[in-house]
């Protein structure tokens, strides 16, 4: 698909079962094509998605993350996405303060009817992350074990 020299970002998508997972199913049913870089992890609701999982993803070598669920008012569980939205506002604030590159976390609302939006979201995010390059800054530090404080400055 792309030349071997091109950087292929690793991206994990955290999506809710009712809207985005179903939306991505529709992308398939509609045979719309998108990049293979993104792998979907299914959750019952965006309200279920633990922010620590996002941090863990980066520490384990993800270059980008997609978080997607139902549009406001469409949540299968009434308000899970509203809770999630507020949590992401807080999370972004904290991460930004720490200097984490929050451009690498792409939030979206993709409904069960938006198969093409899902394809676009994946393709755009892959392009964005490819432009940003590998998240080496984070991954390098994540490899450090004892090399802190006492040793060289991290």
């Amino acid at each position, binding site marked *: 698909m792309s030349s071997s020299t091109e950087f292929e970002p690793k991206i994990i998508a955290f999506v809710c079962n009712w809207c985005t997972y179903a939306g991505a199913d529709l992308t398939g049913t509609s045979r719309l094509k998108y990049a293979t870089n993104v792998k979907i992890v299914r959750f019952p609701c965006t309200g279920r998605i633990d922010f620590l999982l996002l941090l863990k993803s980066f520490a384990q070598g993800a270059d980008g993350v997609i978080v997607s669920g139902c549009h406001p008012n469409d949540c299968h569980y009434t308000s899970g996405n509203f809770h999630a*939205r507020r949590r992401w506002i807080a999370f972004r604030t904290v991460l930004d303060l*720490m200097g984490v590159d929050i451009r690498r976390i792409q939030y979206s609302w993709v409904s069960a009817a938006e198969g093409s939006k899902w394809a676009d979201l994946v393709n755009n995010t892959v392009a964005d992350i490819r432009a940003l390059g590998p998240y080496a*800054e984070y991954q390098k530090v994540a490899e450090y074990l004892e090399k802190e*404080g006492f040793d060289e400055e991290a």
Partner: protein
Amino acid sequence: MKKLRDRVAALLDEGAVSLVIGYEEGTKRPRPLFCRNSESSGKLIFDSRCFHNLAVYVTKKELVGKERFAVTAPISTLRSILQLYVENQLSEEKLLVLTVDLNGELREFVTFEEISAYVAQFEMKRGEREQEILSKIEGMTREERWKFWMGEMSHCFKCYACRSACPLCYCTKCVVEVNRPQWINPWPSPISNMEWHVNRAMHMVGRCTACGACGDACPVGIPIDLITRKMMEDLAPEFGYIPGQPAKQGNALSSWKLDDREQFIR
């Protein structure tokens, strides 16, 4: 001071309370004192140097027992006590709150509302130290912030003094002690240290009262209190709450508004 000592002695003598948590002179600065009888009330002090957040003790059951007890609380402690009420960790029947107001008058509070009304007159502002470091951080680019915090995080050795000093970290099993899965590595490393501090900040959303106890406790001098303070300063207006002045029910993170910001959501 005398009024406070006399009142505490009386409370203990009458048996109105079994314990008064206050301050005494320490080797470097005032430190917590646990008065269980009227004799020891003579050691009590209460002045502007007494800033250690005593609310950290009020949730320790082995310490406070089942009887009613009292705390001599400066403003930071009062704010934490309010938050602990909201989180069902205190009951008004068990705790008597004493403080000395700006006029040197002894004040006693029993209810959430009384404390809340008293606390409302105090504004929460950055001190000189906070202002200095935060304005430095606020002036940094993202890359500079990352370098700055990674440098700081490399000093953290996970003694968890920040957690222990925080009155709102009262969980019997902290997330760092959960090992199925092991969310946060038990050993110190810059990334997992950061994960811990991000996690701490996230757990403090809508709860932190910016008492500074965590930063004060850090033996390696990481300004971790500023992570939570800055988080709270940024989010409080957006989420519509006043830090240290919690509503009696609910929490800024577990509630939401229909028009919460979502420009970042594609």
